[in-house]
């Protein structure tokens, strides 16, 4: 070794898991994480039936749109069902649909995106052109067109949202993978003779995890808002299933009489999206900061 070698960074113990991610969280991100956990709890309450009342249980003596009370914390809905219980059941439906759509769209999007990035050439061209064409039409409009023919079965909704959403996942994962694929360690793997699958799984994926997690959050909140909007328009989940968008719609006419009923499910939707976005914002900020720090080190 040369007599005077260059500066060696401090040796850190190797970390497989990044605890700093949680320990350095600012308040906003902690609140976001709390909101997400709350929603997870609600989903499990709905799955195991741990709600105050049943999903379709009607309380005739309570009447429609009863105000909040000790027994019914959020009052009743348009046909006298317990609002809180409906919201908890709605969590399972709405989040369930959004989550399955996101998972599906992610699997499709990442597979296509990575393939396009690594293979390039014809495969990339064909996939990119198809995605361009689909993205030229506003998502909501295209979804409406398709739903007008296919109807509003839940599996169709999941499929439609997943396919439309996978175009954005495709774009992003392709771009991220391209950034990584031009790096010389990928070229080194290629020169070594490694196969496509190994390169995608071992060289590219580990270096794209964080941006992909952030994107997963964004895609989820998009799918979630989307299914809520469809249900709100009466084109999503159909009654009597509890679902947040649909509940806003069903209770919407009383807003003119100053009754807040539709605001509860709407607030539930807003709250979860805010929670997810707060956490995503933190992940993105972390990346930018580390990128900015790396840049500054070079400049000085």
């Amino acid at each position, binding site marked *: 070794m040369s007599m005077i070698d260059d500066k060696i960074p401090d040796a850190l113990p190797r970390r497989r898991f990044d605890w700093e991610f949680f320990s350095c969280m600012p308040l906003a991100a902690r609140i976001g994480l709390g909101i997400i956990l709350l929603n997870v709890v609600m989903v499990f309450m709905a799955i195991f039936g741990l709600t105050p009342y049943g999903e379709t249980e009607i309380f005739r003596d309570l009447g429609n749109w009863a105000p909040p009370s000790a027994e019914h914390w959020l009052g009743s809905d348009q046909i006298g069902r317990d609002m809180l219980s409906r919201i908890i059941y709605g969590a399972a439906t709405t989040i369930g649909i959004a989550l399955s759509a996101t998972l599906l769209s992610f699997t499709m999007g990442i597979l296509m995106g990575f393939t396009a990035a690594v293979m390039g050439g014809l495969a990339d061209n064909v996939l990119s052109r198809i995605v361009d064409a689909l993205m030229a*039409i506003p998502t909501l409009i295209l979804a409406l067109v398709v739903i*007008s*023919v296919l109807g509003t079965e839940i599996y169709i909704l999941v499929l439609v949202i997943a396919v439309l959403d996978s175009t954005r996942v495709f774009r992003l994962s392709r771009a991220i993978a391209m950034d990584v694929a031009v790096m010389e360690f990928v070229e080194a793997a290629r020169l070594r003779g490694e196969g496509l699958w190994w390169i995608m799984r071992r060289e590219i994926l580990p270096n794209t995890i964080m941006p992909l997690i952030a994107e997963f959050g964004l895609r989820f909140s998009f799918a979630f808002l989307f299914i809520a909007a469809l249900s709100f328009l*009466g084109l999503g989940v159909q009654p009597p299933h509890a679902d947040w968008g649909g509940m806003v719609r069903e209770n919407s006419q009383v807003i003119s009489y100053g009754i807040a009923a539709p605001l509860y499910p709407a*607030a539930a939707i807003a709250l979860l999206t805010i929670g997810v976005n707060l956490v995503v914002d933190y992940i993105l900020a972390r990346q930018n900061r580390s990128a900015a720090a790396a840049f500054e080190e070079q400049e000085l």
Partner: protein
Amino acid sequence: MLNLLLRRLALGVMTLWVVSVIIFAGTEILPGDVATAILGQTATPENTAAIRAQLGLNEPPHERYISWLGGFLQGDLGMSLTSRRPVADQIGFRLENTLLLAAVAAMIAVPLAICLGLVAAIRQGTVFDRGISVSTLLAISLPEFFIGYILIFFVAVHLGWLPSMSNVNARMDLWDKLPLLILPALTLTLVSVAHMMRMTRAAVISVMNSPYIEMAELKGIRNWRIVVQHALPNVLSPIINIVILNLAYLVVGVVVVEVVFTYPGMGQYMVDSVSKRDVPVVQACGLIFATVYVGLNMTADILSILANPRLRHPK
């Protein structure tokens, strides 16, 4: 550069054509039968056959596509299945309403967003900047109907300042319509300002961090002059882009807002028609929305080509 512009234009036309194919295919080739979809529970073999004949579904798809597109180009948007009247007659008034609403919203949102974005960028890192970035994050997370109902609940019902329904009709003139437009326009504004502002802020900051701004500072140029003469020419094209992309977003965001305020625009018409399975109306509305969207995107690209000094002054 002319070459590049023409290519972009050609691409736009190509895209429109592909879009028309997708919309047509989406309604006619997907594995749902339009005729049974329309009739639903009441479908019998006889009336299904009748509907098929009426819609011309017995002809091959490519012929139907050509006659559909041909009609569309001549302003014939087909017949509505539910009202049995030409779609074109019904859509005119609604299209006007939708564009009016989007325009009012844009007139409030665009100047507001750019000003806030500029201030946040110049005061980067201050309390104002952080406050803005948190509140825009919240605003992005809120669904349009939530904002809409909140506004109705407080402004229309509790304060009683404005009507909660925006049911305009053809006999009203602009001044009669305006009070009805305020709440829906405000809803759209709140949703789109957040996006536009964030993007403006990011664009300005990236330009202000570039070495040529540092160079101007080292040349002893005054701060306001650096912003106006060095930053602005470079930031103009991203901002124009951001504005146009958000206009495209407004045109689509209008769908939900129209339903919230029962505003008789194209969005509400399209949603109604989807639930009634009125396929010709859905196709027509879909294609019009998509055309506006594609057109705005193309305009954004063309303007950014025009604004690029490297392309304007080739070597």
